């Protein structure tokens, strides 16, 4: 009994330490100006959305938000298609150069972004895609693709081969098998990929800082950093911006939580 209490105490402490910064940020973003002098951990006595309105319109977060959601949504959707088709070919088809391709993906898995950031920048610049959404989207997809190809592959190998063969016997083309047999049974992998890619894309700072420096093209991560630099005293505004950036990811995660966990462990236990 005592030992259970200790465990409970430790877990509660960790939970508190982990949620405290988020809670304080949320509190600060909702406090009217006169309450801001109170310590950050005191909940707001009365709630105001004025800080949100301020950063949303004057702070330019509206533009940042639209930029971010556009890039992240395109990233997630295209990644699902691209990675699953590649993985399908790797798992279900045989073709020349398959092994070489696999090796390339493994290499891609091991190289950190920071190591190739400079050549990446010059490549994107040389094709004239600096300050375009497309440039960032290309870079995002290329960099994260090995991870998701790997994830889809490990999901696909858990699909019985006989299913693929039955569809071939039924006269389905490879694309029909992909579209009508394999993808419908891969919902957990699809959701996990979409969610993870969306979140990575949403939260990424480095690539966006480099590839989208112009004001009108900024994403939330860059916008928030900039805002922090310029409005160092506006704690409430910074907090509101942070909350704006966090909300979609939190909502998505809550909504898909169960699928997400299933997708991550699929193949490992089956």
């Amino acid at each position, binding site marked *: 009994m005592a030992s259970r209490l200790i465990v409970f105490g430790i877990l509660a402490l960790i939970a508190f330490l982990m949620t405290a910064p988020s809670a304080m940020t949320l509190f600060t973003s909702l406090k009217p100006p006169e309450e801001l002098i109170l310590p950050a951990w005191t909940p707001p006595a009365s709630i105001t959305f004025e800080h949100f309105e301020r950063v949303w319109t004057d702070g330019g977060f509206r533009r940042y938000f639209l930029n971010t959601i556009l890039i992240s949504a395109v990233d997630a959707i295209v990644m699902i298609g691209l990675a699953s088709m590649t993985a399908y070919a790797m798992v279900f088809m045989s073709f020349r150069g398959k092994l070489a391709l696999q090796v390339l993906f493994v290499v891609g898995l091991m190289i950190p972004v920071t190591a190739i950031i400079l050549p990446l920048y010059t490549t994107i610049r040389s094709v004239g895609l600096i300050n375009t959404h497309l440039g960032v989207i290309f870079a995002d997809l290329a960099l994260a693709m090995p991870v998701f190809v790997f994830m889809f592959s490990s999901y696909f190998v858990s699909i019985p081969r006989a299913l693929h063969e*039955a569809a071939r*016997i039924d006269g389905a083309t490879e694309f029909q098998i992909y579209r009508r047999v394999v993808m419908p049974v891969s919902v957990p992998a699809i959701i996990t990929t979409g969610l993870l890619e969306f979140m990575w894309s949403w939260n990424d700072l480095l690539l966006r800082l480099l590839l989208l420096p112009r004001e009108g093209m900024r994403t939330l991560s860059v916008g928030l950093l900039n805002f922090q630099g310029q409005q160092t005293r506006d704690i409430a505004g910074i907090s509101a911006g942070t909350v704006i950036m966090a909300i979609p990811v939190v909502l998505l995660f809550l909504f898909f939580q169960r699928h997400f966990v299933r997708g991550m462990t699929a193949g490992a236990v089956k």
Partner: protein
Amino acid sequence: MADLELRNISKSYGATKVLHDINLKIDDGEFIVFVGPSGCGKSTLLRLIAGLDEITDGDLLIGGERSNKLSPKQRNIAMVFQSYALYPQMTVAENMGFSLSLERRPKAEIRQKVDEAAATLKLEALLDRKPGQLSGGQRQRVAIGRAIVRNPRVFLLDEPLSNLDAALRTETRVEIGELHQRLKTTMIYVTHDQVEAMTMADRIVILNAGRIEQVGTPMELYNTPATEFVASFIGSPKMNLITGKAAQEYDAATIGIRPEHLDIVTESPHWQGLITLVERLGHNTIVYAQVPDVGPVTISLEGQHEYQVGQNVGLDADLSKIHRFARDGRPLV
């Protein structure tokens, strides 16, 4: 409907050859069973015919046309898998109509063909269910339904009954037999169970280690096995294979006597045996006995008998039914 011909077909996976020089002619409308021990290459041969694997060497003719390079669809064959391989996210009706929907046939036509097949297989009440909501036997029917909806030239079935319990297996065996009677489509059926082979086949192909041991009607295989392997594989209980001095008496390396051709006698017995086990099945009794200089033998007696373990009995064989084999397993005539 179509006949098939396999000419010198062999199959290798990398350096390992799993099928050697398979030659076989299958007539239109025949029910052919491939039987053999696990790992002998039955499924591989079936997959070559289906077009799921590439033929390494030799020719496959379907309806007289060389089909080595044709896709499964072009061959117009249907296959029932051991695991059934139903599409889990589709309903029973969608599973059965999948091949037709891929051909973009009109919905009404698909519906009608699915309904027809469902009626044949008593699946009407299950059409809107998903495979996950079906029992093993029902899934198996759906897998067969998916095959017959297409009206293929040839049916391939790979151990379709091996995941069913014994009672259901016998029942489904009969139903598949009746289905063949009705459709009169060429069927190739793979099993490792010689009882299934004997009961269902027009002709049986016995495979062993990637080679055909013998092709023939069930009774041909039973009466005149071409090799010692066939002799021991066909028939239940297994044929007694006796080597040594007892076989030399008959100028053979091995003699084979089926349990049903041995009898327990009181007068002038050929051998004396000590009973080690008695199995009573009602319609027959199986006696296991130990015979000095011969070894263990199995005797199958018709009807019910009161023999006891430990009893010493005289044994006699029906001499006209003894099979004699040379050292290489070939029969002596």
